[in-house]
Structure formats: structure tokens, C-alpha cells
């Protein structure tokens, strides 16, 4: 077991420094890039917090949908193949829910402020990740 504070806590602190100090005390491209860097770190902190549980859930869901076992890259590649050739489609039980669950989690990490994500959450209150 690695020690604490957890990586996501330390990363969040670095992001606060970049935003609150570097971006605030510089200007132009440096200030802008410090803000972009802080946003990127905040994204990584969210991924460290959310991904482990969500990816375990995704793996189980993929195995149930596809009837095979494997790791996330190979099972996602297999799901892609079956959607591309039409073997699976939105009428497949569980498929739409799976895609919604995985995609909502991606957005919770990547861009939780994106309006399309906020709209989807409002439309699908049962699927809060």
C-alpha cells in the first residue's frame, strides 16, 4: 500500500497552485497555459478518483453483453466490431444502458461542465455515475 495523501489530493493541490498563483501572477500565453495545465491536472485527479470502480463495472457489463472474458481494451474492441457489423445494436438488451453508463463516466472525468453532459444527467436521473 502506497502512502497518503492520495495522488488525486496532491494533483489537486498542484492545480490550485497553477490556477491561484501562476495563472494569477502571470499574463498572456503563460497565464492561459497555466490555466490549461491546471484543468488537465483536475481531470487526472477525477480519473484517479472515479475510474477504478467505474472500470470494474464496465468490465463486468462488457462480459455480460458479449458472453466472453477479457480485458477492457480487447472487450471494447470486440463490442466495436459487433456494433460495426450490426451483430449488436440498440435493440440488444442492456446495450444502450451500457453505452450510457460508460459515456457518462467518461464525461464525469473529462468534461463535467459540458452542457451536453449536464443535459444528459437531467434527462437520465437514474444514471448518475
Amino acid at each position: 500500500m502506497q502512502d497518503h495523501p492520495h495522488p488525486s489530493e496532491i494533483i489537486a493541490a498542484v492545480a490550485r497552485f497553477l490556477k491561484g498563483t501562476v495563472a494569477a501572477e502571470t499574463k498572456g500565453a503563460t497565464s492561459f497555459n497555466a490555466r490549461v495545465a491546471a484543468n488537465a491536472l483536475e481531470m487526472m485527479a477525477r480519473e484517479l478518483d472515479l475510474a477504478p470502480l467505474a472500470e470494474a463495472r464496465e468490465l463486468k457489463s462488457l462480459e455480460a453483453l458479449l458472453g466472453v472474458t477479457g480485458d477492457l481494451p480487447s472487450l471494447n474492441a470486440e463490442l466495436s466490431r459487433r456494433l460495426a457489423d450490426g451483430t449488436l445494436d440498440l435493440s440488444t438488451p442492456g446495450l444502450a444502458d451500457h453505452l450510457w453508463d460508460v459515456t457518462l463516466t467518461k464525461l464525469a472525468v473529462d468534461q463535467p461542465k459540458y452542457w451536453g453532459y449536464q443535459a444528459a444527467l437531467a434527462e437520465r436521473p437514474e444514471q448518475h455515475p
Partner: protein
Amino acid sequence: MSELAGPLDDLARRRLGGDGISGFARLTAGATQEIWRFNLVKDGAETPLILRRAPGGDRVSESATGLETEAALIEAAAEAGVPVPPVRCVLRPEDGMGRGFIMGFVEGETLGGRIARGEALAGARTFLARQCGEVLARIHTIDPAKFPNLKRVTPLEFVTLYLDAYRATEWPRPVFDLAFRWLLDRCPPPPETPRLVHGDFRNGNLMIGPDGVRAVLDWELAHVADPMEDLGWICASSWRFGVADKPVGGFGEREELWAGYEAAGGVKVDPDRALFWEVFGSLRWGVMCAGMTQSFRTTDPNVERAVIARRTSETEIDLLRLLAA
């Protein structure tokens, strides 16, 4: 300043009838274009102008038309009654500045968020979607025969082009496969009359003032194709800047866009075909974002590029909302 200042000052005297230049400064650090502004000085008066140049003077991306063609497109658009910045001159090899052109400076707003939400443009938003339809109808009257070097693409070829680009990322995105399947199952036949389309007509590439569209910018993705493509692209979720209930660029309704298009002489809009191109629009932007991972790992390893790559998931949720609601 820049090694360009000398040659530009010289060009201003030789080709623009001025006494020199002032206020030369780069406006964007864009990866695909260089945009500079400067003033043409003549008899003590200053006229603001824009220099648009291939990055480094000569690099042009594979999908872009090339700067000389872009200048010719803007001139043809002006003749067709499309608001564009007037082209003042196209760079020649002897100008020693690489490839590009000089155009007039048009005052206005290009930032999508301010156009969709800013108080200053609230009045314009009441008629902007309709006006965009009218402008697109005029763009689609430009004779493609004048531009034999522009790409001709059928709907199926266009979808396939982006499907190949997605596959080349070698990263599975089941939502993209669902969307490509949806598009391939509904792919319209080639249009009876292919038109010259702008190819990137959206909120962000339009110069807007309180009086509406002042200039249509960024002609580098123009090609000859189904005119409905342009009407779908401006409705893609990616250009709404947070205004969920205004599908046209975050400022208007599809029906206003279509009414303006038809009233100005465009072909009658088939809503299914428009939806096809709207879905394709989200997917096309998604594939473009997904490709940023490759750029980040090879040519442009900066943080902003990585963050744009991570915006791919925005288009995945947009596609699910369109196809699996």
C-alpha cells in the same frame, strides 16, 4: 518583431499603394494558420488589414484547399453576395513571405460563447439563424466548375473518409461504431446537383455584429458535395456553446435556418437528410478530436492538445443523445 515585417513593408509599398506599415502583430498561434494584423499607412492614415499565411510560410494540411484557392473562394463568394473580408492581394513567390493573402479587417465578434450568450448580440440572435440560411444559399450558388482542384466527395465517401480516420486511431469507441453504422444504414445517394460547400460553416467561423453576419471566415475546408452538409454542420452539438435549446450555433432554430435557406433560393430541405448531416457533424468533430492524441504523441506534445483529445467524449454523449435517447 518578425522576419516578415521587412518583406511586408516592402509589399505594402509595391502592391498596396501605401507608404509602409504599422502595428504588425500576430493574432493567433493557430496550428493550421497564421493570422497577423497590421495597418497599411498611406498619407498618414492607417487602414487595418489582415495577413493570413500558411504556418511557417508553406505548410498546408492535407485536407485544406491551399491559400491561393482560399483567396479565390473568398473572391467568388463576394461575387455571389456572401459577406466576406475583401481580398487585397495574394502573396507571390517574389514577395518572399511564403504562401498566403492579405484581406480587409472586418470588425465584429467571432467568439462562439459571446455570439450565443452575449448581451451585445441579443438582437442579432433573433434573426441570425435565418440569415445563416440565406448566406448558405448564396454560397451554394458559386459555380464549382471554377474550382476544378477542390475535392469532390459523395456522402458515402465522406463518411468512409472519417471512418478510416477513426480506425487509424486504433482505439475502440463503441459509440462511434454505433454512429457510423447508423450513418452507413442511412447514407443518402449523391446529390443530383453537387454544390460548392464551405465545409466549416459554424459558430466560431462567422464574424458577427449587431447587424448579423459580417463575414464568413475560414474557407480552407471547402469542397464540392451535398449542400445539406453545411446545414447539418452548423447544427452539430459541438457549436452550441452551452445553449442546449438553440440547435443552430447556440443562437437559433433549425426551422429558421431552413426557411432562410429556401427563401434565398436553396433547394428544399429534407429534415431526415439534415439530421443525417447533423449526426455526421458530431461524429466528424469527434474523429477530429480523437486524432489529437496522435498529434500530441508526435508533432505537438503540449497540454492543450491533450486536453482537446479528451474532448472526444463530448461528442460521444452528443451522439448518444441523438441516437439512443
